[in-house]
């Protein structure tokens, strides 16, 4: 029961795909990096 491969899900005039989620995800990763960095930076200032 092979599916006919020619059936396209894509419709004409479809808008640009949205990458909002990807963008926000990278921002969250960036935020995580900054927060952990400052965490250790505070420790550094406290110790040295």
């Amino acid at each position: 029961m092979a599916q006919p491969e020619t059936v396209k899900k894509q419709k004409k005039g479809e808008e640009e795909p949205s990458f909002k989620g990807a963008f926000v995800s990278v921002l969250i990763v960036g935020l995580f990096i900054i927060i952990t960095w400052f965490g250790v930076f505070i420790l550094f200032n406290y110790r040295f």
Partner: protein
Amino acid sequence: MKTASRLKVDQRDAKLVMAHFYVAFISLAIGGMAGLLQVLVRSGLFELPAGIGYYQLLTLHGVVLALVLTTYFIMGFQIAAVSRTSGTLTAVQRKLGWTGFIIMTIGTAMAAIMILLNEASVLYTFYAPLQAHAVFYLGLAFVIVGSWFGSAVILLKYRQWRKENNKAVSPLLTFMAVVNSIMWIVATIGVAATVLLQLLPWSLGLVETINVGVSRTLFWYFGHPLVYFWLLPAYMAWYVIIPKIIGAKIFSDSLARFSFILFLLFSIPVGFHHQLMEPGIDATWKFLQVVLTFIVIIPSLMTAFSLFATFEGYGRSQGAKGLFGWLKKLPWKDARFVVPFIGMVAFIPGGAGGIINASNQMNQVVHNTIWVTGHFHLTVATTVLLTFFGISYWLVPHLTGRILTKEMNNLAITQGVLWFVGMTIMSGAMHAAGLLGAPRRSSFSEYGGSSVAADWIPYQVAQGIGGSILFLSIILMLYIFINLAFFSPKGEQDFPVGEAGHEAEKTPKVFENWKIWIGITVALILFAYTIPFIDLIQNAPPGSKGYKLW
């Protein structure tokens, strides 16, 4: 005819690849056993049976996992990837591949025997002035030279493909393997130099003393690109193979090539970030290499965006709504996706920790603490390794003419989840204890009843628990590997290779202008290293004789 022969790795090439994988997974078994013993010793609840030294064990663990397992897996995987995307190896290329494999294996055996005889308990960084038996260094040299043969196979195949295809844009996986091979060759020249010109004559007694600063600098000139040599094959899978597995297109062929080029340029002139606490290197040059190190954040975040975009694009094509609805559409029951995905997640704290390590003065907080060990058990021992396991789940049956059955797939997911749980506990405890000052590379000690050291012990017990769970995961992995290599039902397992989306632009030719990229690579290396290197030689303190402290 041509396409058909390309969809499958040729049987003769498959044998060569599997030979590499056997050594890799035997290393996993040995190294995993050592890791388990280490965490048990360090918890204070267990002592090594008479005769085995803690540093002997730790050397074995580091060498077989970080050096042997990785190099063999990568050589095998890259050969498979090139054979699949650029065509079967020629007889000469295959012979070169086998020659490299044999040379590497002789070298590995030499080094391993010296470690087992307790003649080389110098840890996997073999830092001078610790001095191992000459045969250990000779073995290392063999491994390096053997790996050059494997790299030559990749480069020759690439050249042949370009010739036969009128200099067309090369297949993406082949291109990536070429970048990694060039980086490897440039980087290993440094470690070959210190092994052959410094460590070997010194251990043979031909010279009395060694310039420690120079040998460590040459080591880290190699040591940092080494970590990218591990990581780039994982990126090959993330950029090219994972999209195919989930049923999506590659986000952008050009972006993938560009990020690989950036890794080539900025992975090598940065070794000083491992020597920030060492004397003999001017602060200006340390600072410069710190800045160059931070440039790697750019291709790293590019990679992250590209992956998120692949996932989101796919999820939305399946009707996902909202900001994160696409996450639900991913194939959470497919081990070929889930296991590397766990690796990707681990790279978020792994990368964040790396930025902290490399932050010049802040390195003082973590230097030589067990935090660092926690860091690279996330990066190499989770991100890279789980991706390699995820690759093995389809590549091993592909090569042996078998299939990944439903049961094995489910077991593989269990393997990945167990790894995640065990590593979260072990690496988390290592990070925390490290911030409290607990040193790395140390057996159990109460440090004369110090109250500071007493605070570390609960974390060491936690590492024992996490490490034991990890060991279970390794057993599962080995079981699945043996099953896929020898017992799984016969069949055709696909070697997934993604294609770029139709809207993706044409890939610029400049990416394959190697004169430019190798030229800039060399220029950056000369810029970052020449003056401090001369300084290390001209203003060197008296050389050091060798020490055997074990």
